[in-house]
C-alpha cells in the first residue's frame, strides 16, 4: 500500500518539496547547483531575475514566523513573482475555516505555489495531495516532521566550506525529538553520502529508534563532538523546561551548551551552524556563535539562494 513518492511526478521530476526524505541525491544536488547560480544574483546591484514573472506565490503561515517567511518572500521577489503573505493564525482559522477550505479559496485565485508552515506534522503533504496538478507546495516546516529548505541551505553551507560530503563527520546537537530541522538534516546528510552522522542529546529529547534513520547516538558532548567536521546546533524551545523534558536551561547549557571548551573536541577547522533564532547562553555560548568557526550568518544568506533555487525548479523555466 506504499504510494510512490508524492514529491515527484511520473517523470521523477520534482513537483513539491515536502521533505528531504526519499529524494534522490541527484535532485538534492540539482537544487544546490541551481542555488550556486543565484548566490551571484544576490550579490549584484540589480537583484532580480525574471524566472517567475507572472507567477503567484502564497505564503501560508499557520504558525508565526518572521525569519523564514521573510526569506521566502525575498526569494520569490528576486525571481519576479507576485507574493502574498497570509498570516492564517490570526485570520481564517480562528473563524472556523478548515485548512483545506483556505487552500481551495486561494487556489481559486490562480495560485501557482503555496509555501506552507503548520504546527502539525503532515500538513504540507495533506495540501499537496489536495491541490490540482500544476500547483506546487513547498513545506516551510510542518510540526516535528520536516523543514527541507532549512536542511538544503545547511547542505549548501557545508558544501561551500567543506567542498565534499563523503569524508565528513557531522554532529547534530539538541532537541532532536521535537525538531523538524534535525529530521530533514539527517535525511539530506545520509542521502548526500556523509559517512558518519551523530546526534547528541539527553534521552528525553531523542525519539525512539532514531538510529534507524542512520545516525549514531551520543548522550555526552565530549565523545559526541570528538573529531567532527561539522556541528549543527538546534534551537531549544523554552517550553521544554515546563514539562519534564529538562530540569533547567542552566543545567542544559552546562551539559549540552556549545562552549569553546566543548568545541575544542572537534577538528580544529570544524564549522558551527545553527538554524536560528539562537538562544545564547542556552544552547550556544556567544563566544562560539560569534567566533571564527561560526558560519551562522552565511547560512542566512544562502537561505535566500536555496529558496530561489527550489521555487525556480518547481515553477520556473528550465535554468
Amino acid at each position: 500500500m506504499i504510494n510512490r513518492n508524492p514529491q515527484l511526478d511520473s517523470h521523477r521530476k520534482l513537483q513539491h518539496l515536502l521533505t528531504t526524505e526519499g529524494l534522490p541525491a541527484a535532485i538534492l544536488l540539482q537544487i544546490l547547483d541551481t542555488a550556486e547560480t543565484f548566490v551571484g544574483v544576490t550579490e549584484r546591484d540589480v537583484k532580480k531575475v525574471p524566472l517567475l514573472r507572472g507567477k503567484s506565490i502564497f505564503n501560508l503561515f499557520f504558525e508565526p514566523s518572521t525569519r523564514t517567511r521573510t526569506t521566502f518572500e525575498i526569494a520569490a521577489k528576486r525571481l519576479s513573482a507576485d507574493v502574498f503573505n497570509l498570516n492564517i493564525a490570526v485570520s481564517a482559522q480562528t473563524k472556523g475555516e478548515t485548512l483545506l477550505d483556505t487552500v481551495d479559496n486561494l487556489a481559486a485565485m490562480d495560485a501557482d505555489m503555496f509555501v506552507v508552515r503548520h504546527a502539525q506534522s503532515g500538513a504540507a503533504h495533506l495540501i499537496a495531495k489536495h491541490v490540482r496538478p500544476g500547483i506546487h507546495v513547498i513545506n516551510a516546516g510542518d510540526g516535528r516532521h520536516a523543514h527541507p529548505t532549512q536542511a538544503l541551505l545547511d547542505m549548501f553551507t557545508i558544501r561551500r566550506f567543506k567542498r565534499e560530503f563523503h569524508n565528513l563527520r557531522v554532529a547534530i546537537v539538541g532537541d532532536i525529538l521535537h525538531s523538524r530541522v534535525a529530521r530533514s538534516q539527517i535525511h539530506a546528510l545520509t542521502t548526500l553520502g556523509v559517512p558518519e552522522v551523530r546526534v547528541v542529546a539527553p534521552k528525553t529529547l531523542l525519539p525512539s529508534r532514531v538510529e534507524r534513520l542512520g545516525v549514531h547516538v551520543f548522550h555526552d558532548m565530549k565523545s559526541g563532538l570528538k573529531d567532527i567536521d561539522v556541528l549543527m546546533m538546534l534551537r531549544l524551545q523554552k517550553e521544554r523546561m515546563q514539562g519534564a523534558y529538562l530540569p533547567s536551561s542552566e543545567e542544559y547549557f552546562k551539559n549540552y551548551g556549545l562552549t569553546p571548551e566543548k568545541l575544542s573536541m572537534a577538528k580544529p577547522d570544524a564549522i558551527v551552524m545553527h538554524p536560528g533564532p539562537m538562544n545564547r547562553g542556552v544552547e550556544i555560548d556567544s563566544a562560539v556563535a560569534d567566533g571564527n568557526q561560526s558560519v551562522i550568518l552565511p547560512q542566512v544568506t544562502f537561505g535566500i539562494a536555496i529558496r530561489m533555487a527550489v521555487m525556480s525548479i518547481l515553477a520556473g523555466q528550465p535554468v
Partner: protein
Amino acid sequence: MKIHIKNGRLIDPKTGTDATRDVFVADDKILTVGQAPAAFEPDHIIDASNLIVCPGLVDTSVRLREPGLEYKATLESEMNAAVAGGVTSFACPPDTDPPLDEPGLVEMLKHRARSLNQAHVYPVGALTLGLRGERLTEMAELHDAGCIVFGQPDGMMTNLRVLMQAMQYASTFGFSVWLNPQEKNLAYDGVAHDGEVATRLGLPAIPVCAETVAISNIILLAKVVDVHIHLCRISSAEGLAMVRTAKQQGVSITCDVSANHLHLSDMDIDYFDANCHVIPPLRSISDRDALRLGLQDGTIDAICSDHAPVDEDAKMLPFGQAEIGATGVELLLSLTLKYGLERKRPLIEVLAAITTKPATVLGINAGHLSPGAAADLCIFDPESYWKVTVSALRSQGKNTPFLGMEVPGKVRYTLVNGNIVYQSQP
C-alpha cells in the same frame, strides 16, 4: 414465517459442525438443523448452494454515534451497515455524547434500535459518570435499562482507587468490566506507535508501555477483586504476553483485537494516511504478527470491527488532528476471512472469533445455531471478492485504511430473529 435454508455448508463453531446441512427456521427461532421437522412447509426457501451458513456475527465494538454525534452517522445508517456485514448482535461503547451513564439514555437507545428491527444492540454502560473516572454510575439501574457490561473506553482512568472500587462494585452484581488498556499520561498527546515510522514522520508517539503499564495495573487489581475483566483492543506483543500469563494463572480475563490491527502496522500510515489514525495505534509488524498468533492460540478471544464512522471533513486534516477511528462493521467478516486465508487457518476456527466466542465474552445467548436459538444467521459466499469503495459501504463513515482493496467474502443473506434483514445479489 417459515424458512428453509437448503444445500448450504453449515459452520457452527459452538458444536464443531462443518458439513452440508439444511436449516429450518420458524418465526424467530431455529427449529432444527439437518432433518426437516415433521410437516414443515416453508413460506420461503433460501438456496444456499456454494454458500456458507453460519451464526450471525457478534461484534464487541460498534459505534452508532447516538446519542449526540448524529452528524457522523445515524442509528439507521449504522444498523443497516451492521446487517450488510452479517453482524446480528453487537456491543456499542458508551463513548457517546453524552456518555451512556444514565438509564434514560440507554432505554432510548435500546428503544430506537429495536424499532428499526435489525441487529440486537447491547449498550455498554459507562463505568463512571461522564466517563470521567471519578464517580460510579448507577450500574444496577443501568443494567435494568439494558446494559449487560460496563466499560471505560477512553483509555484507563488515572485514579486507580476509583478503578478498583468500580471493579468491586460491578463484581457485586456479577457484571463484567470492559477496559481499553492505555495509560493516559504515557499516551499523552501521542497519535502513532512509538517506533521508526513516528520518528520519521515526526508524529507524537504512544509507547507500548502505555498499554503494558495499564494491563499490569488491571491484572493486579483483578487478582484482588473477583471480577471478570475484558480488555478491549490489545495492540502489542508484550501486552498480549501479559494476558497469556494472566490466563494461565487463572485470572478471569478475556481480550479482543480489532480487525485493523490483525492486518495493518504503523508502516501503513505511509505518508500520513489519516484513515490509519486509530487508538490504540497500529503498532509494528512484529506486534501484528504476535496478535495473529495470539488469536490462533486462543489468548485473544474475539475479533471486533471497532467500528467508528467519522465524517469526511474530520479526516481531511493533518494526521494528528484528524479524528480517531475507522469504519469497519461491514469489513469484519471479510477481514476475518482474509486473516484465515493468509494464516491458513480452518474456517470454523476463524469464524468462532466473530460468533460464539464474542457472544461468550458479552455473556449473551447468541453466536450459535442450536435448535431453539434465535434465528440469527449470516449466509455468505466465501469465494466472492469485493472492492472496498465509498459506494460499496452503507455506513455513513467511509473512513477505512482498506479503501480500494479487494477483500474476500460477500454476505448474501442476513437473518435476525428469522427475518431476512439483508440480501444481496451474487
